[in-house]
């Protein structure tokens, strides 16, 4: 007993000894007095408080020790632990889908029927498909600049000065004097403060949008904007509200509802944009620009206007919608156009104030991360502008041809034409029983206006229903028949399933001033005959 108590004593003694040693070393440490004071003041004779402090201390240690990179591994119950063997089995079992499905017969036939031109493109190209010369109502050569000898000559000369490629992004020795010249030419032509060149028309708008619109900003867009705009908005991660296609009443309603929403939430002032097109790629309708400008100024929105199909095609000298409606181009905050379509060169541009343009030089992905446009194409774009400026007759001829074509097409009962009368791209819809197009039934129009569509959804409340497959097939037959008879036309090609809402299948005619009026009429006449026979 005594020996037991003596051993206990020694144990207690040694513990007390070591404790005091620890205490002494603790006090020797610099700053230990502070810790001691902290512990004393927090303890305050209350073990509960110390316990709480300890819990907090351990939590901090745990958080610090946790690996941050394995966050998604540990995000709760969803992660399943497997042994290495199980993983090997799972890997062996997994069968991926093929990377791509081979084309089915219809797709393959359609791909084979794509017109391929032998030699230069122009009003009367020879097709590889048929081997015969045709009248071209498919290629985008609205003012006939593609065949201009002067442009070609200037492009050749600049090739002999600059070579072909620019060999660098604009930031790093890819800014050539001719690029700057072309930018100045565009801004002078449109009368804006500045302009910026992009290398591909399609990528222009889809890069301009994310350069300005960020998360939390508000975009109000037309329901029928082209895919490039849709993709730009997707990248921007902004809040999107939609208004009915080309319906400025609907736009005003949406603008009001957005304002109401903001007041209710008392959120901060964010950037707000209206995004729409001048002439719509999807159907050739035209925006009422003066009204749009009025609305944007009333509700304090910025306007991003895609003039890809209206720049170089409408207005007295081809300056686009702003010239047609006599609106100052500087009223449009970001005016996006295409040099490839309007000027028959390549690339696109965004014109606006100096702040707007300079901002893009650092923040626009397609501008910053891409090699700049070959100098010879910038020269052809500049020359195209000079020609448009000096020869308004090109535009009058284009309008004459558009009128001639419309006069013939309007007589066909089996089709509807959504396009604006001045638009040089003319879309033809089938007026077939498969569609319950509300345009055709005036009785349903009353129903439409009764309830506005939900602005958060890209799908309109009374969206027309149509049988895409059937219409596409019929239109394809018409296209192929026309090509066989020497008229080159095309369906509006779409990537089905990628667009937010499906566009109605259509035939897209591109009228050109390079064709004589007689040729245009002849070609449209052939098409009309086919339409009358094929579609009843």
């Amino acid at each position, binding site marked *: 007993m005594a020996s037991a108590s003596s051993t206990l004593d020694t144990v207690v003694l040694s513990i007390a000894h070591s404790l005091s040693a620890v205490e002494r070393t603790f006090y020797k440490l610099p700053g230990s007095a502070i810790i001691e004071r902290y512990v004393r003041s927090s303890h305050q004779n209350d073990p509960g408080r110390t316990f709480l402090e300890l819990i907090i201390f351990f939590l901090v240690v745990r958080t610090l020790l946790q690996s941050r990179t394995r966050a998604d591994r540990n995000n709760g119950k969803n992660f399943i632990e497997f042994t290495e063997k199980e993983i090997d089995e799972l890997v062996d079992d*997994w069968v991926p889908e093929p990377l791509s499905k081979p084309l089915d017969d219809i797709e393959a036939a359609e791909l084979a029927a794509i017109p391929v031109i032998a030699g230069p493109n122009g009003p009367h190209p020879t097709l590889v498909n048929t081997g015969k010369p045709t009248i071209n109502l498919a290629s985008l050569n609205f003012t006939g600049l593609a065949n201009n000898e002067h442009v070609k000559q*200037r492009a050749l000369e600049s090739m002999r000065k*600059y070579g072909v490629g620019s060999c660098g992004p604009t930031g790093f020795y890819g*800014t050539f004097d001719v690029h700057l010249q072309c930018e100045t030419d565009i801004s002078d032509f449109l009368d804006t403060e500045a302009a910026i060149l992009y290398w591909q028309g399609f990528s222009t708008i889809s890069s301009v949008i994310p350069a300005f619109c960020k998360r939390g900003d508000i975009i109000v867009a037309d329901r029928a904007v082209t895919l490039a705009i849709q993709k730009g908005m997707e990248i921007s991660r902004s809040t999107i509200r939609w208004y009915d296609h080309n319906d400025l009443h609907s736009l005003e309603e949406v603008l009001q509802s957005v304002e109401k929403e903001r007041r209710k939430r008392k959120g901060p002032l964010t950037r707000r944009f209206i995004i729409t097109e001048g002439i719509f790629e999807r159907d050739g309708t035209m925006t009422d620009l003066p009204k749009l400008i009025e609305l944007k100024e009333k509700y304090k929105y910025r306007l991003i206007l895609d003039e890809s199909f209206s720049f170089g095609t409408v207005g007295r000298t081809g300056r686009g919608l702003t010239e047609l409606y006599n609106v100052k181009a500087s009223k449009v905050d970001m005016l996006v156009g295409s040099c490839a379509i309007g000027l028959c060169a390549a690339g696109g541009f965004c014109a606006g104030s100096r702040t707007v343009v300079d901002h893009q030089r650092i923040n626009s992905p397609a501008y910053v991360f891409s090699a700049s446009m*070959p100098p010879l194409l910038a020269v052809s774009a500049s020359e195209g502008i000079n020609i448009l400026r000096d020869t308004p007759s090109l535009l009058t001829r284009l309008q004459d041809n558009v009128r001639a074509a419309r006069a013939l097409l309007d007589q066909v009962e089996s089709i509807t034409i959504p396009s604006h009368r001045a638009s040089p791209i003319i879309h033809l819809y089938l007026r077939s029983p498969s569609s319950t197009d509300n345009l055709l039934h005036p009785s349903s129009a009353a129903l439409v206006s009764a309830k506005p569509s939900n602005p958060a959804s890209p799908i309109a409340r009374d969206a027309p229903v149509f049988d895409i497959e059937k219409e596409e097939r019929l239109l394809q037959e018409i296209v192929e028949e026309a090509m066989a008879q020497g008229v080159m036309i095309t369906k509006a090609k779409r990537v089905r399933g990628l667009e937010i809402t499906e566009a109605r299948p259509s035939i897209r005619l591109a009228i050109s001033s390079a064709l004589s009026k007689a040729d245009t009429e002849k070609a449209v006449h052939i098409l009309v005959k086919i339409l009358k026979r094929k579609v009843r």
Partner: protein
Amino acid sequence: MALNRGSSPTSSLFKKQKHSSSSPPTAASYLSALSQADARARNAKRGTPTSTPALSISSSLTASTEDTVIAEEDDDNSDGLAVSVGRPPNSEQLYTTVHTEFGHCYDEEYRNISQHPLGEPIARHVERDPPYYILLSTYISYLILIILGHLRDFLGKRFHPHSYRHLMPHDGYAPLNSDFDSFYTRRLKQRMDECFLQPVTGVAGRTILLLDRYTPDCNQTQIILDTRTRALNISSYNYLGFAQARGGCADAVEEGMKRYGVTSCGSRLEGGSSDLHILAESVVAKFVGMEAAVISSMGFATNSTFIPALVSKGCLIISDELNHASIRVGVRNSGAHVRMFKHNDMKALECLLREVISQGQPKSHRPWKKLLLIVEGMYSMEGTMVDLPSVLTLKEKYKFYLFVDEAHSIGAIGPHGRGVCDYFGVDPRKVDVLMGTFTKSFGASGGYIAGNKALIDRLRIRGYSGAYAEAITPPVLTQIIASMASIMSIDHNVGSTASVNKLGLQISSSSSSSTRQLVSDYYHPGPISQRALPNWLSLPPPLASGAEGFMRLRRLSFNSYYLHRGLDKLGFITYGHPSSPIVPLLIFNPAKMIMFHRMMKDRKTPIVVVVVAYPATPLVTSRVRFCVSASHTKEDIDSVLRACDEIGDVLDLKHGLSKGERWNIDEVCRRAVELVHIPDNEH
């Protein structure tokens, strides 16, 4: 140099010759002019050096029918760029290029074949760390810059509200750019704006003409003067030196433009296709060794518009953390899930693969529809190369699809210039999708995607480039066809395909080194038949035979190795694989970047360089990125090395090799050939 900027160039410095572009001078007269110029230059070298100011050529923008004659016409060579100082050509060799566009280098010693030794592991890229004081001072520099910037904003908003108007809400509009978002641009980047957006003119070849500019108000505005400075260009993506306004390719482009015009009017599926497009696509497919290819008119858009056609919701993209912005845009547009792995780290990749395949889709745990691994052949900021053999081994086990972005590697590496597959000797068909651009090696523009025929046909109708974006233009297509054909060499015998292949094998075996023992998996497609090219395309013999293309490949490889290893031996920290033409040199401190840029440009032989900093690189590893070209001569690389050596001493940039291991600059220049031929693993 600075003195020269203000003065206008005298007209006696250059001569102009009228020639109508519709009838260019014949090749013979052109060559004789060149050799005369060369003779003069050699005489000048022997004579006393001239004391005229540095060369600055002005050429009028508007007078297009006049063309300044090649710089050799100029007797002034004080910047050392106009005439070749290397070994003169022997009697069989002729000048076929303009020295300022494509340097003359006739020394067969200065050649190397870019090829991975078969069977050996890829030399791992070792990141060398700088001393701690450099890191510390870099962080402190940024800290000072940030504090100063905020201080200026704070004071500026109170005393100069007008100049901050675009950053404040006004008139009911939110600012276009919040001051927080634009802080970096306004307060850090703007200080070094002289390094960016430099306007240039002429050909971006071996040398480049800078439009001199100055800023009166601390980079708020840049005023372009009408004087020019010719500088050695080690910045443009011109790997094979095809940025030329003269020579066989340019002649072909002229012919192509005469036949096809300038533009193609519309998208590929809607009346913008011509036979030239189809032809070019088959040439590209043959070049990269795939069944089919599709061409897009913009390199950036190739990724951003075709990746969404490959994968969709329910698929997973595994992406290297340093992949290019265009890939990120494409990935985001596709709607697929994305996971990233550490740059070029095969262990991390395998770990990730095991995790994602075993876990399946998040929450639902359904198996992924497909996995797509996206890597780049060569990384544009690091110069590192993907470890393709290891990736292919993983591919066999984990059944993912492989997308290799060869934007920088196609044409630039491999004994036949066919990119990473050629370099590592693997069959390109083992890769599912090969993507590349024409900007970097071929002096053109745009990009391609190559793969099997079913895939490419699918992409033609499902990639939105085909239906919505404009088609690539004929002059660019001709440049692509001509430059690719000259690397492939043209087979004029219109014989059966079997004989073509035989010839191809012959060429490949004669071109590869005799020490090769292992049989490469890479099947060299051989020369292209004349029938596969446009019948009007006629390239001059050196190009058509492939001799010049082969020379370009070997010169590029020599230059890449030489610059990489030269900088290493001088004691600098460089990144990347020695065979990559991208050579990043680490600078670290932000202030040194602008000084480096300025000191290089203000030398007697001006050199223009690209400096990159955050956000393109991590904050501390600011760097200067050299892009070597086949058009550089050995002497050009010498002068770059000499410049770096001098500036590196002044700016304290040598933190790589310890002092004892370093070579001095003269030794590096003298032992260049030896340096280049050290095997990768022993270096």
